[in-house]
């Protein structure tokens, strides 16, 4: 009798847990047809983890650099762990998370995130954090990122946060209940359309141009983590014209790179060297590069990485070449599809 009761109770618990699990799967945003950037972080885990270069940072990495070019031109196997408005503490913990799986030779970090010294926005937090697999890195990333209104438990049980989506569920919420659709090319978000940069506003005057202590603390931690793991940390400023990159910020990054012996590349100053044309190489008026622009600056970055760190050209590795042949086919297919759509408009 007692045994029966235990079995019944266990079954009851299982049924309720299963129901909640299914509900949570259903209610979580799928980030497939829109706001696809929400899927970027999770896509990494399905990859074979043998990368030479890992990019971390905000939209200025995942929209401006193309790993396919690093492979095609230099035989460098790379991946972008970027997400929208990725804050520096999120970049740091994403790097910690990455090191659980692999140890790249170079980590490239985009420095725009230094402008933020405290948590900003829950919606962006969730796009950077929810895709991470559970680990201490994720726990710490959540703790470092939460705004005053957020609760840790809502990240553990996202159903607590998303239960109001029940009234706006779409067909894709069912279609992608247990399946995923790739939205990036090794973390790169491709756009082929063109919108020239014009009338880009200058930056507003700031009372204090110094980067915050918290931002510096995480940059120090990132530099140390790389040093401890014999990884070369490269700082970059992507050539995005907006948000405005102040001269005062530039000087601080230059000083930091010099003091810590880091390579720093500011692509805003390399228009001629990269051949970047803001009339044809951006799809949104100078905020992000389109495919043409991304391929130009990635080619420059690849040469810089080769010159500085003499990374091995791995194009002769049969297995990796095969993986990249498939990736390149998907990349070219996406390019053609987007070009056709652009022509129709």
């Amino acid at each position, binding site marked *: 009798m007692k045994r029966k009761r235990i079995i019944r109770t266990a079954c009851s618990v299982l049924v309720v847990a299963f129901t909640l699990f299914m509900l949570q799967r259903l209610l979580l945003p799928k980030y497939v047809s829109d706001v696809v950037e929400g899927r970027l972080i999770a896509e990494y885990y399905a990859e074979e983890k043998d990368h030479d270069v890992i990019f971390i940072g905000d939209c200025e990495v995942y929209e401006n650099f193309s790993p396919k070019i690093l492979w095609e031109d230099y035989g460098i196997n790379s991946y972008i762990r970027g997400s*929208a408005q990725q804050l520096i503490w999120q970049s740091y913990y994403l790097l910690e998370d990455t090191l659980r799986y692999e140890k790249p030779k170079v980590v490239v970090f985009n420095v725009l995130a230094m402008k933020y010294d405290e948590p900003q926005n829950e919606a962006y937090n969730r796009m950077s954090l929810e895709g991470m697999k559970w680990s201490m890195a994720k726990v710490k990333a959540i703790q470092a990122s939460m705004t005053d209104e957020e609760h840790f438990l809502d990240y553990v049980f996202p159903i607590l946060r998303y239960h109001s989506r029940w009234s706006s569920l779409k067909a894709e919420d069912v279609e992608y209940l247990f399946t995923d659709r790739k939205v990036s090319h090794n973390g790169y978000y491709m756009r082929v359309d063109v919108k020239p940069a014009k009338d880009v506003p200058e930056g507003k005057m700031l009372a204090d141009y110094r980067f915050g202590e918290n931002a510096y603390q995480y940059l120090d931690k990132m530099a140390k983590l790389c040093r401890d793991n014999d990884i070369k940390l490269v700082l970059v400023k992507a050539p995005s014209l907006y948000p405005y990159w102040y001269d005062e910020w530039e000087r601080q990054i230059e000083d930091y790179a010099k003091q810590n012996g880091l390579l720093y590349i500011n692509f805003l100053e390399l228009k001629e060297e990269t051949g970047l044309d803001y009339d044809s190489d951006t799809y949104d008026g100078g905020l992000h590069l389109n495919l043409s622009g991304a391929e130009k600056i990635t080619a420059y970055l690849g040469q810089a990485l080769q010159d500085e760190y003499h990374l091995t050209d791995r194009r002769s590795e049969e297995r990796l070449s095969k993986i990249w042949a498939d990736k390149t086919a998907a990349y070219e297919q996406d390019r053609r599809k987007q070009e056709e759509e652009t022509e129709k408009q």
Partner: protein
Amino acid sequence: MRSKVWIGSIMMIALLCGCGSDVKVIEGDVAVKETAAQAQEKKQEDTAAEVTEEDTAQYSGYVFTYGGTVIGMDMDAAPIVEQLGEADSYFEAPSCAFEGIDKVYTYGSFELDTYPTDDKDYVSSVVFKDDTIATTEGVGIGDPEDKVVEAYGSDWTEEDGMRVYEKDGMKLCFILEDDTVASIEYRSTAIEQ
């Protein structure tokens, strides 16, 4: 027993789903902006198209007046942009990932920024570009600190090195250099949420 399990499950589902209407849905970052914008819009609708400086008292927070056009934070931007006429320059800044475009209109002496909510644009900030204009209370770039205190009092807070006067969910921000006003910005607090 089986029926108890189902009743329990259904109750839990009802509990989780039923209270959804008052919780912000995280599919964009603008849902919380509605209250401020809608409240300001209502006041804007109540006022005639042609506004004078005397009308400014009807608005929430500090407002900026330019050539008879009253510009308040979280107000519907469309009629304001129409009244101001063609801007010297115009820039669109799509937000990363989310739909919607922040817009920047520059009118010589000031910059007007907007944020989108649903199908409308609302004023997010006004930034002074030179010393040819002044706030409705008469303070402009280049004025001494005393004039700021005279106009807005001593009830201010410091935020990122700025002197900030907060009123009705908006902020009036001054940057002072050597006791002189170097920058003036009206700012909606909706975009900070």
